[in-house]
């Protein structure tokens, strides 16, 4: 999945235009479809009462896969956000990793079951741990880029967030600093038109977040998030610029949020039927599928095989995660610091059965 410098094996015109061979196009499609399938399963599990909370990337996958494809896996860094399932998977996390986070199992690579689902992160794949306060990660990615520049590692760092989050003060401070030092940094804004219930017109004063780039002296590009290859191209340009020492780029992908904000949200309260229908029409998954079909990259055979593979993967991941153990209470005080401190003592109830009642006089 290196973005540049490879030879196409068999290449449709579609792939040739962006310098990817057909295997890669299929791999991209597979990733979009896999992320979607896992995401859909999450909702099923939630409704079945198996997992208490879901936050979703549905409608964002095309942009995430397209953009991430332009980065170097295991070398560059990403600071993702809670909708970044497809991004995290493209960068190396697998279906089991994602499901372990939903179930918050001890073996969950994101947090060992400490964080809510959606708060991905995987040190093995240079994916920084997601937190909940939005927009903070942009500064982490900028700091990673700063270190890359100082250490001459040739790395690029990318941060992703929604358009609502891009109004946070940290974004201003980050873009200013990254631009001053021409850091190898890419800022991806996934604009789905809503911050929970608040429509873009009420949360951001310009139609395009990309307009803000000029105020920092950096390029800002708008890209159609339902066009996976356009996202890839935009990211490739940004990543090459970044690696060449020419500084950051702001990429705004217009995407759609196909689900409620989270499993706690009822979006019909604030979105019209039309709005929801329009959203569906700009879903990247069917667009990309049609595009690949038309180019002959996806055949009925390939699609059938993919469907089977994906369904097996999702089921395997679910079963695996279901069966994994929960973390032990005795693990809960580990990793506050690198070492344990005697003065940071456990509470009087120790690590026994939680909620125990120690009986008269006991602790």
């Amino acid at each position, binding site marked *: 999945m290196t973005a540049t410098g490879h030879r196409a094996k068999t290449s449709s015109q579609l792939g040739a235009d962006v310098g990817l061979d057909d295997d890669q196009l299929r791999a991209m499609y597979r990733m979009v479809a896999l992320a979607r399938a896992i995401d859909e399963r999450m909702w099923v599990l939630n409704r079945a009462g198996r997992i208490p909370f879901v936050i979703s990337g549905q409608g964002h996958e095309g942009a995430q896969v397209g953009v991430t494809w332009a980065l170097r896996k295991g070398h560059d860094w990403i600071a993702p956000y809670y909708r970044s399932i497809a991004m995290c998977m493209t960068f190396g996390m697998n279906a089991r990793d994602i499901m372990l986070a939903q179930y918050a199992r001890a073996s969950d690579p994101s947090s060992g079951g400490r964080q809510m689902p959606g708060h991905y992160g995987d040190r093995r794949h240079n994916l920084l741990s997601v937190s909940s306060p939005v927009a903070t990660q942009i500064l982490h990615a900028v700091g990673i880029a700063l270190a890359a520049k100082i250490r001459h590692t040739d790395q690029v760092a990318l941060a992703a967030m929604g358009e609502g989050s891009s*109004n946070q003060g940290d974004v201003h401070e980050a873009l200013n600093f990254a631009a001053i030092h021409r850091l190898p940094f890419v800022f991806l804004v996934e604009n789905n038109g809503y911050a929970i219930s608040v429509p873009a017109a009420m949360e951001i004063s310009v139609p395009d977040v990309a307009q803000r780039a000029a105020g920092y002296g950096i390029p800002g590009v708008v890209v159609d998030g339902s066009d996976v290859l356009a996202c890839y191209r935009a990211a490739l340009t940004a990543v090459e610029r970044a690696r060449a020492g020419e500084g950051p780029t702001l990429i705004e992908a217009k995407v759609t949020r196909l689900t409620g904000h989270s499993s706690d949200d009822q979006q019909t309260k604030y979105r019209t039927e039309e709005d929801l229908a329009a959203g569906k029409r700009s879903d990247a998954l069917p667009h990309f599928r049609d595009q690949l079909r038309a180019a002959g990259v996806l055949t009925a055979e390939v699609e059938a095989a993919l469907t089977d593979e994906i369904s097996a993967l999702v089921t395997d991941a679910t079963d695996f995660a279901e069966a994994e153990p929960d973390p032990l209470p005795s693990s809960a005080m580990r990793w506050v610091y690198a070492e344990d401190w005697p003065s940071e003592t456990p509470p009087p109830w120790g690590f026994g059965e939680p909620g125990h009642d120690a009986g008269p006089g006991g602790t």
Partner: protein
Amino acid sequence: MPTRTFIEAIRATLADEMRRDESIIVLGEDVGKKGGVFLATDGLWAEFGDDRVIDTPLTESMIVGASIGAAVNGLRPVAEIQFADFIHPAFNQIVSEAARMRYRSNNAVGLPMTIRAPYGGGVHGALYHSQSVEAFFCHVPGLKIVIPSTPYDARGLLRSSIRDDDPVLFFEHKKMYRSVRGEVPDTDYVVPLGRAAITRPGSQVTAIAYGLMAHYALEAADRVAEEGISVEVVDLRTLRPLDKETVLGSVRKTGKCLVVYEDNRFGGYGAEVAATVAEEAFDYLDGPVTRIAGPDIPGVPYNHVLEDWFMVDPAKIAAAIRKLAAY
């Protein structure tokens, strides 16, 4: 008398106050059409419109900073921070600005504003949707901090907070929103700021708590009562200004004091209560001022096993009471 859930009491009080005083506005993320992520402001936008119920951008510093300005210029803003966990981006505006405006201007400018925020754990909220943040703000002179535990107090204290001429932080335990129900008169009563309540009289141990822990302390008191331990429960209600009189009065009577809080133990608000009692009721103490509080880890973990382990609950409080009573 009608009974209401905790959140209904808050919603109704916001509406009543807005009807009474048109200088009151409500602002925050998703407070408008959606009515807030917990529906605490549901219906307000429909009744009071865009000017008085403002869906803000996702920017907490702005929410507080603009509320300060609005308070300077004749309004009485009631800001909502969606989760107490997300108040930190506004920390500078609250601590450097809101808390000090009156003092630094030598009383030229006061700030009648309220900041509401849901706090607390036990709801599968994990590190960033479970925090107790009162310790940070209780340390700051110029702020008033309120944490009600009953629908009655929520209504009466929210009224007092909104009508107060200084910035008030009003924290609502989100686990209580729908699980706690109580009698709430429709009258215009207020519960004054700065007054604790003795919610259960007792003679052997004083348990001091607030918020969800005020309920758990009562439950624990029930449990140990069967064993012959008489516990007096003090529900602080206002954390700052602290009602020292009620607190010290109770401890001087019982001779034993347990301070209960949900937040991380080290440097939490309960440390101040414990230190005050230990210093000012020393001669009356028959046992160490004891604290039962959240473990010192950076947030409530999500996994239910770890979350249960983290949360202070009636059983854990009861165990601490027994130990102290036996001292």
